[in-house]
């Protein structure tokens, strides 16, 4: 257990540094955008500018999340294919979970950092009643304060994290299958075949996932789900479907990691 904790700390520390860098770049980019805006307004400062800046910030935050997700996905794969981590006397289960867990924690950490900035913006806007902007109005007034119930918010967040875990699990499976196929068979034009395999396996995974999920939803909500309770129960169903898929993919991934997947470097 101690070794797993140490590994968790190591993996999280690397990703923590990565998130700090992404957040810093995000803030710097935002600072530059604000500066340009102030300069182009002849150095005059109006409170109403906060609305526009908030939208710029939201856009930059979206980019930051996207970049973080890609970086974490790459780092997830790097760990599973690297001697550095595979040589550690720890079971494949523990390595797989530590890897996934530290990536999720890193994402939560970014979410926390962005949340602080959001709260600052929110308090400035609330203090000055600057809710004229349509998007800001939707984001603050509707999304935060008028959500139908707490359950739905919590479930939406859970679904958000589960879907990220699910996509990481699928990416890992795709990577593993490609590695397995290219290890087992003598492939000529390896790079071309790899890209074809990437496309093919991703397509098959998405098809299976899509047909299963939509099948369940058609069965359960064939008569529509415009009633609030039904949306709520749909979210709960989604959570169970996602968990089911994550469990299945995790079992396959860990089996492949244990029996077939070798390190690249």
């Amino acid at each position, binding site marked *: 257990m101690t070794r797993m904790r140490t590994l968790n700390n190591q993996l999280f520390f690397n990703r923590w540094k990565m998130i700090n860098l992404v957040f810093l770049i995000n803030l710097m980019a935002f600072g530059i955008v604000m500066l340009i805006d102030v300069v182009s307004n002849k150095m005059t400062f109006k409170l109403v500018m906060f609305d526009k800046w908030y939208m710029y910030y939201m856009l930059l935050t979206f980019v930051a999340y996207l970049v973080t997700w890609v970086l974490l996905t790459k780092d997830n794969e790097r760990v599973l294919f690297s001697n550095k981590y*595979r040589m550690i006397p720890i079971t494949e289960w523990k390595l797989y979970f530590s890897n996934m867990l530290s990536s999720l924690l890193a994402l939560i950490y970014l979410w926390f950092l962005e949340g602080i900035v959001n709260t600052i913006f929110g308090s400035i806007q609330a203090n000055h009643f600057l809710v004229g902007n349509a998007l800001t109005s939707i984001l603050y007034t509707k999304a935060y304060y008028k959500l139908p119930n707490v359950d739905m918010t919590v479930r939406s967040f859970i679904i958000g994290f589960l879907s990220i875990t699910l996509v990481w699990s699928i990416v890992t499976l795709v990577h593993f299958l490609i590695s397995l196929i290219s290890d087992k*068979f003598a492939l000529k034009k390896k790079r071309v075949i790899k890209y074809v395999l990437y496309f093919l396996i991703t397509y098959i995974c998405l098809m299976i996932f899509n047909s299963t999920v939509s099948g369940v939803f058609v069965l359960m909500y064939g008569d529509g789900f415009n009633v609030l309770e039904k949306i709520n129960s749909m979210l709960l169903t989604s959570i169970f479907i996602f968990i089911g898929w994550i469990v299945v993919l995790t079992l396959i991934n860990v089996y492949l990691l244990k029996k077939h997947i070798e390190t690249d*470097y």
Partner: protein
Amino acid sequence: MSNVLKIEELNYKKGGKKILEDVNLKLDSGKIIGLLGENGAGKTTLMRIIAGVNSVPEGVITVNGNTKKVSIKENVSLSDHLDGFKATNKISEIVHFYSAVYQDFSITKYEDIANFLGLDMTKKLAALSTGTRGKLVIALTLARSAKLYLLDEPLSGIDSISRKKIISSIIRWKDDDSTIIISDHYVTAIASLLDEVVIIKDQKIRDLIPVEKIQSDYHLGIEAYYEKVYLGEIQ
């Protein structure tokens, strides 16, 4: 003397090609063994299989009586070429990583070896020459208290002075009951270290022979014996 390593009926294929076939090997503890073979003979693959970073599709690997992968990894210290670390990582960070994840890693032993080899903790990986990187790999590998050390081409691309230093450190920091397997193209460079020689030829273990026997029975040096085995002059 007990068996530190036992390999039974190991077969390994990659990319549809046989790399190792019907490998059976038993090694006693406390020795330094040279793993010799031409390029692509399967030396690195064999080491990686023993260390548990390559899969074992067919066969059984036993290290110090353990067949479970985790226990094997606890008993084996493989020289990693550190490609998993970032170029910006300082030596101190790599040492910190090793001491955090390997319970048998001794900082004191590392510092002794590093002082002997002249390694500077503050240097970044990117700033190291091939020779210094090789020294770092050896220091990290030997600083663990393992039963079996696997040194994969530790002298490859390294200048003669650094080579001598590395060889001296292997002799100096080897525990009496631990076993070291060294693979290298520089047969002459490592010859002075070896107690036994394992030769891989045509995907199979061709020979496991004590160095004394090579000298007494064939009146040859290790390199000459190895060449004759490869040319088929010794059956």
